[in-house]
Protein backbone atom coordinates (compact mmCIF):
# COMPACT_ATOMS: atom_id res chain seq x y z
CA UNK A 1 0.00 0.00 0.00
CA UNK A 2 2.89 2.32 0.81
CA UNK A 3 4.46 1.53 -2.57
CA UNK A 4 1.19 2.31 -4.34
CA UNK A 5 0.87 5.60 -2.50
CA UNK A 6 4.43 6.44 -3.56
CA UNK A 7 3.69 5.51 -7.18
CA UNK A 8 0.67 7.82 -7.16
CA UNK A 9 3.18 10.67 -7.04
CA UNK A 10 3.78 9.97 -10.73
CA UNK A 11 0.37 11.47 -11.53
CA UNK A 12 0.01 15.23 -12.03
CA UNK A 13 -0.31 17.03 -8.71
CA UNK A 14 -3.84 18.30 -9.35
CA UNK A 15 -5.11 14.81 -10.19
CA UNK A 16 -3.31 13.27 -7.24
CA UNK A 17 -4.61 15.79 -4.73
CA UNK A 18 -8.16 15.36 -6.02
CA UNK A 19 -8.30 11.57 -6.31
CA UNK A 20 -5.19 10.16 -4.59
CA UNK A 21 -6.94 9.25 -1.33
CA UNK A 22 -9.89 7.75 -3.23
CA UNK A 23 -7.50 5.61 -5.29
CA UNK A 24 -5.77 4.32 -2.18
CA UNK A 25 -9.15 3.55 -0.59
CA UNK A 26 -10.26 1.77 -3.76
CA UNK A 27 -7.13 -0.36 -3.87
CA UNK A 28 -7.60 -1.26 -0.19
CA UNK A 29 -11.13 -2.43 -0.95
CA UNK A 30 -9.91 -4.42 -3.95
CA UNK A 31 -7.24 -6.11 -1.84
CA UNK A 32 -9.90 -7.04 0.70
CA UNK A 33 -12.10 -8.70 -1.94
CA UNK A 34 -9.73 -10.09 -4.56
CA UNK A 35 -6.50 -11.97 -5.09
CA UNK A 36 -3.51 -9.80 -4.08
CA UNK A 37 -1.31 -10.73 -7.04
CA UNK A 38 -4.09 -10.05 -9.53
CA UNK A 39 -4.93 -6.70 -7.97
CA UNK A 40 -1.25 -5.68 -7.92
CA UNK A 41 -0.76 -6.68 -11.57
CA UNK A 42 -3.87 -4.77 -12.65
CA UNK A 43 -2.81 -1.69 -10.65
CA UNK A 44 0.66 -1.76 -12.26
CA UNK A 45 -0.80 -1.95 -15.79
CA UNK A 46 -3.30 0.79 -14.96
CA UNK A 47 -0.53 3.06 -13.67
CA UNK A 48 1.63 2.44 -16.74
CA UNK A 49 -1.23 3.37 -19.06
CA UNK A 50 -2.91 6.22 -17.21
CA UNK A 51 0.05 8.21 -15.82
CA UNK A 52 1.16 9.45 -19.29
CA UNK A 53 -2.46 10.03 -20.33
CA UNK A 54 -3.22 12.19 -17.27
CA UNK A 55 -0.04 14.23 -17.88
CA UNK A 56 -0.97 14.71 -21.51
CA UNK A 57 -4.47 15.87 -20.58
CA UNK A 58 -3.12 18.39 -18.07
CA UNK A 59 -0.50 19.65 -20.52
CA UNK A 60 -3.05 20.11 -23.33
CA UNK A 61 -5.47 21.84 -21.00
CA UNK A 62 -2.76 24.17 -19.70
CA UNK A 63 -1.38 25.04 -23.13
CA UNK A 64 -4.78 25.74 -24.68
CA UNK A 65 -5.99 27.79 -21.73
CA UNK A 66 -2.80 29.81 -21.40
CA UNK A 67 -2.77 30.54 -25.14
CA UNK A 68 -6.38 31.72 -24.99
CA UNK A 69 -5.78 33.90 -21.93
CA UNK A 70 -2.68 35.48 -23.47
CA UNK A 71 -4.52 36.12 -26.75
CA UNK A 72 -7.46 37.78 -24.99
CA UNK A 73 -5.09 39.71 -22.74
CA UNK A 74 -2.97 40.95 -25.67
CA UNK A 75 -5.99 42.00 -27.71
CA UNK A 76 -7.52 43.71 -24.67
CA UNK A 77 -4.33 45.61 -23.84
CA UNK A 78 -3.84 46.65 -27.48
CA UNK A 79 -7.44 47.87 -27.75
CA UNK A 80 -7.15 49.76 -24.45
CA UNK A 81 -4.12 51.65 -25.79
CA UNK A 82 -5.13 52.38 -29.38
CA UNK A 83 -8.92 52.00 -29.45
CA UNK A 84 -10.08 55.15 -27.66
CA UNK A 85 -13.26 54.98 -25.50
CA UNK A 86 -14.81 52.15 -27.54
CA UNK A 87 -11.49 50.32 -27.37
CA UNK A 88 -11.52 50.65 -23.57
CA UNK A 89 -14.98 49.09 -23.38
CA UNK A 90 -13.93 46.31 -25.76
CA UNK A 91 -10.73 45.77 -23.75
CA UNK A 92 -12.76 45.47 -20.54
CA UNK A 93 -14.98 42.86 -22.23
CA UNK A 94 -11.93 40.93 -23.45
CA UNK A 95 -10.33 41.00 -19.99
CA UNK A 96 -13.59 39.71 -18.50
CA UNK A 97 -13.65 36.96 -21.16
CA UNK A 98 -10.08 36.03 -20.32
CA UNK A 99 -10.84 35.87 -16.59
CA UNK A 100 -13.88 33.66 -17.25
CA UNK A 101 -11.84 31.42 -19.58
CA UNK A 102 -9.15 31.01 -16.95
CA UNK A 103 -11.63 30.35 -14.15
CA UNK A 104 -13.59 27.77 -16.19
CA UNK A 105 -10.56 25.88 -17.54
CA UNK A 106 -8.15 26.49 -14.69
CA UNK A 107 -5.16 24.22 -15.26
CA UNK A 108 -2.89 22.63 -12.68
CA UNK A 109 -1.16 25.81 -11.65
CA UNK A 110 -3.53 27.86 -9.53
CA UNK A 111 -4.14 31.40 -10.70
CA UNK A 112 -3.15 32.96 -7.39
CA UNK A 113 0.30 31.39 -7.17
CA UNK A 114 2.20 34.63 -7.78
CA UNK A 115 3.01 34.22 -11.46
CA UNK A 116 0.78 37.08 -12.51
CA UNK A 117 3.09 39.83 -11.25
CA UNK A 118 6.08 38.25 -13.05
CA UNK A 119 4.13 38.48 -16.32
CA UNK A 120 3.08 42.03 -15.49
CA UNK A 121 6.65 43.09 -14.64
CA UNK A 122 8.05 41.26 -17.68
CA UNK A 123 5.61 43.01 -20.00
CA UNK A 124 6.20 46.42 -18.40
CA UNK A 125 9.97 45.87 -18.58
CA UNK A 126 9.78 44.93 -22.26
CA UNK A 127 7.65 48.00 -23.03
CA UNK A 128 10.00 50.27 -21.08
CA UNK A 129 13.01 48.82 -22.93
CA UNK A 130 11.28 49.42 -26.25
CA UNK A 131 10.51 53.03 -25.34
CA UNK A 132 14.11 53.66 -24.18
CA UNK A 133 15.62 52.03 -27.30
CA UNK A 134 13.36 53.90 -29.73
CA UNK A 135 14.02 57.18 -27.90
CA UNK A 136 17.80 56.69 -28.09
CA UNK A 137 17.92 55.43 -31.68
CA UNK A 138 15.34 57.96 -32.92
CA UNK A 139 14.23 56.94 -36.44
CA UNK A 140 13.63 53.20 -36.75
CA UNK A 141 15.61 51.49 -39.52
CA UNK A 142 13.79 49.60 -42.29
CA UNK A 143 12.42 46.40 -40.80
CA UNK A 144 12.81 47.77 -37.29
CA UNK A 145 9.20 48.88 -37.28
CA UNK A 146 7.99 45.28 -37.48
CA UNK A 147 10.28 44.25 -34.63
CA UNK A 148 9.09 47.19 -32.55
CA UNK A 149 5.42 46.30 -33.23
CA UNK A 150 6.01 42.65 -32.39
CA UNK A 151 7.79 43.63 -29.17
CA UNK A 152 5.01 46.04 -28.27
CA UNK A 153 2.30 43.41 -28.87
CA UNK A 154 4.26 40.86 -26.83
CA UNK A 155 4.57 43.29 -23.96
CA UNK A 156 0.84 44.06 -24.19
CA UNK A 157 0.18 40.32 -24.13
CA UNK A 158 2.29 39.81 -21.02
CA UNK A 159 0.74 42.80 -19.24
CA UNK A 160 -2.78 41.71 -20.21
CA UNK A 161 -2.19 38.11 -19.10
CA UNK A 162 -0.67 39.36 -15.83
CA UNK A 163 -3.71 41.53 -15.13
CA UNK A 164 -6.09 38.69 -15.98
CA UNK A 165 -4.26 36.13 -13.84
CA UNK A 166 -3.97 38.58 -10.98
CA UNK A 167 -7.72 39.34 -11.02
CA UNK A 168 -8.59 35.63 -11.42
CA UNK A 169 -6.24 34.79 -8.55
CA UNK A 170 -7.83 37.36 -6.24
CA UNK A 171 -11.33 36.14 -7.12
CA UNK A 172 -10.23 32.52 -6.60
CA UNK A 173 -8.64 33.28 -3.22
CA UNK A 174 -11.75 35.10 -2.05
CA UNK A 175 -14.02 32.26 -3.26
CA UNK A 176 -11.87 29.65 -1.49
Amino acid at each position, binding site marked *: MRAYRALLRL*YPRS*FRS*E*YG*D*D*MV*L*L*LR*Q*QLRDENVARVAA*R*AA*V*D*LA*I*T*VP*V*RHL*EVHMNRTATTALVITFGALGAALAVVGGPIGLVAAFALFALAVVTWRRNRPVVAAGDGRWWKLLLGGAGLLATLIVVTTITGELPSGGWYIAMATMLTSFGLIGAGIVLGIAGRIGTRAA
Partner: protein
Amino acid sequence: MKPLPPASMHLVLALLDGELHGYALMRRVEELSDGSVRMGAGTLYGTINRLLADGLIVETTDRADRSDDDERRRYYELTANGRAVALDELARLQAIVHKVGRHLPRIAPA
Protein backbone atom coordinates in the same frame (compact mmCIF):
# COMPACT_ATOMS: atom_id res chain seq x y z
CA MET B 1 -24.55 13.08 -31.06
CA LYS B 2 -20.97 11.81 -30.91
CA PRO B 3 -20.67 8.46 -29.09
CA LEU B 4 -18.95 8.56 -25.72
CA PRO B 5 -15.50 6.95 -25.30
CA PRO B 6 -15.86 3.35 -24.03
CA ALA B 7 -14.84 4.04 -20.41
CA SER B 8 -17.23 7.01 -20.14
CA MET B 9 -20.01 4.99 -21.75
CA HIS B 10 -19.60 2.17 -19.22
CA LEU B 11 -19.67 4.60 -16.29
CA VAL B 12 -22.78 6.52 -17.35
CA LEU B 13 -24.61 3.26 -18.06
CA ALA B 14 -23.58 1.92 -14.65
CA LEU B 15 -24.92 5.08 -12.99
CA LEU B 16 -28.37 4.76 -14.60
CA ASP B 17 -29.51 2.78 -11.55
CA GLY B 18 -28.57 5.57 -9.13
CA GLU B 19 -25.64 7.00 -7.19
CA LEU B 20 -22.54 4.89 -6.54
CA HIS B 21 -19.13 5.42 -4.96
CA GLY B 22 -15.91 4.69 -6.86
CA TYR B 23 -15.44 1.08 -5.87
CA ALA B 24 -19.13 0.21 -6.32
CA LEU B 25 -19.02 1.89 -9.71
CA MET B 26 -16.02 -0.21 -10.72
CA ARG B 27 -17.78 -3.39 -9.61
CA ARG B 28 -21.01 -2.38 -11.36
CA VAL B 29 -19.17 -1.88 -14.65
CA GLU B 30 -17.54 -5.27 -14.20
CA GLU B 31 -20.91 -6.85 -13.48
CA LEU B 32 -22.70 -5.21 -16.42
CA SER B 33 -19.95 -6.30 -18.82
CA ASP B 34 -19.88 -9.87 -17.44
CA GLY B 35 -16.37 -9.31 -16.17
CA SER B 36 -14.91 -8.24 -19.52
CA VAL B 37 -14.37 -4.60 -18.50
CA ARG B 38 -12.19 -4.16 -15.43
CA MET B 39 -11.17 -0.60 -14.79
CA GLY B 40 -8.13 0.32 -12.76
CA ALA B 41 -8.22 3.23 -10.32
CA GLY B 42 -6.42 5.57 -12.75
CA THR B 43 -8.86 4.86 -15.55
CA LEU B 44 -11.86 5.08 -13.25
CA TYR B 45 -10.98 8.40 -11.62
CA GLY B 46 -9.63 9.87 -14.87
CA THR B 47 -12.98 9.11 -16.49
CA ILE B 48 -14.92 10.39 -13.47
CA ASN B 49 -12.88 13.60 -13.66
CA ARG B 50 -13.78 14.05 -17.33
CA LEU B 51 -17.48 13.29 -16.78
CA LEU B 52 -17.57 15.81 -13.91
CA ALA B 53 -15.93 18.44 -16.13
CA ASP B 54 -18.43 17.72 -18.91
CA GLY B 55 -21.33 18.07 -16.49
CA LEU B 56 -22.58 14.53 -17.05
CA ILE B 57 -22.18 13.48 -13.43
CA VAL B 58 -22.02 15.27 -10.07
CA GLU B 59 -20.67 14.36 -6.68
CA THR B 60 -23.56 13.86 -4.29
CA THR B 61 -23.29 15.41 -0.87
CA ASP B 62 -26.78 15.06 0.63
CA ARG B 63 -27.32 11.33 0.91
CA ALA B 64 -30.19 10.43 3.20
CA ASP B 65 -28.77 7.10 4.38
CA ARG B 66 -25.20 7.31 5.62
CA SER B 67 -25.47 4.35 7.96
CA ASP B 68 -22.88 1.59 7.61
CA ASP B 69 -20.83 3.73 5.25
CA ASP B 70 -17.26 4.97 5.08
CA GLU B 71 -17.61 8.76 5.17
CA ARG B 72 -14.44 9.16 3.14
CA ARG B 73 -16.27 7.69 0.14
CA ARG B 74 -17.46 10.06 -2.51
CA TYR B 75 -20.64 9.20 -4.36
CA TYR B 76 -21.46 10.19 -7.91
CA GLU B 77 -24.74 10.41 -9.79
CA LEU B 78 -25.89 11.39 -13.27
CA THR B 79 -27.06 14.92 -13.97
CA ALA B 80 -30.21 15.41 -16.07
CA ASN B 81 -27.96 15.89 -19.10
CA GLY B 82 -25.89 12.85 -18.12
CA ARG B 83 -29.01 10.70 -17.89
CA ALA B 84 -30.14 11.87 -21.33
CA VAL B 85 -26.70 11.06 -22.75
CA ALA B 86 -26.71 7.64 -21.07
CA LEU B 87 -30.13 6.85 -22.50
CA ASP B 88 -28.95 8.01 -25.94
CA GLU B 89 -25.96 5.66 -25.62
CA LEU B 90 -28.26 2.83 -24.66
CA ALA B 91 -30.52 3.53 -27.64
CA ARG B 92 -27.47 3.70 -29.93
CA LEU B 93 -26.19 0.33 -28.73
CA GLN B 94 -29.65 -1.22 -29.05
CA ALA B 95 -29.94 0.13 -32.59
CA ILE B 96 -26.58 -1.42 -33.52
CA VAL B 97 -27.58 -4.79 -32.06
CA HIS B 98 -30.94 -4.60 -33.82
CA LYS B 99 -29.37 -3.69 -37.18
CA VAL B 100 -26.68 -6.35 -36.98
CA GLY B 101 -29.31 -8.89 -35.93
CA ARG B 102 -31.40 -8.10 -39.01
CA HIS B 103 -28.45 -8.44 -41.40
CA LEU B 104 -26.88 -11.45 -39.75
CA PRO B 105 -28.87 -14.18 -41.57
CA ARG B 106 -27.68 -12.77 -44.92
CA ILE B 107 -23.98 -12.71 -44.01
CA ALA B 108 -23.94 -15.88 -41.94
CA PRO B 109 -22.31 -18.86 -43.69
CA ALA B 110 -24.80 -21.42 -45.05
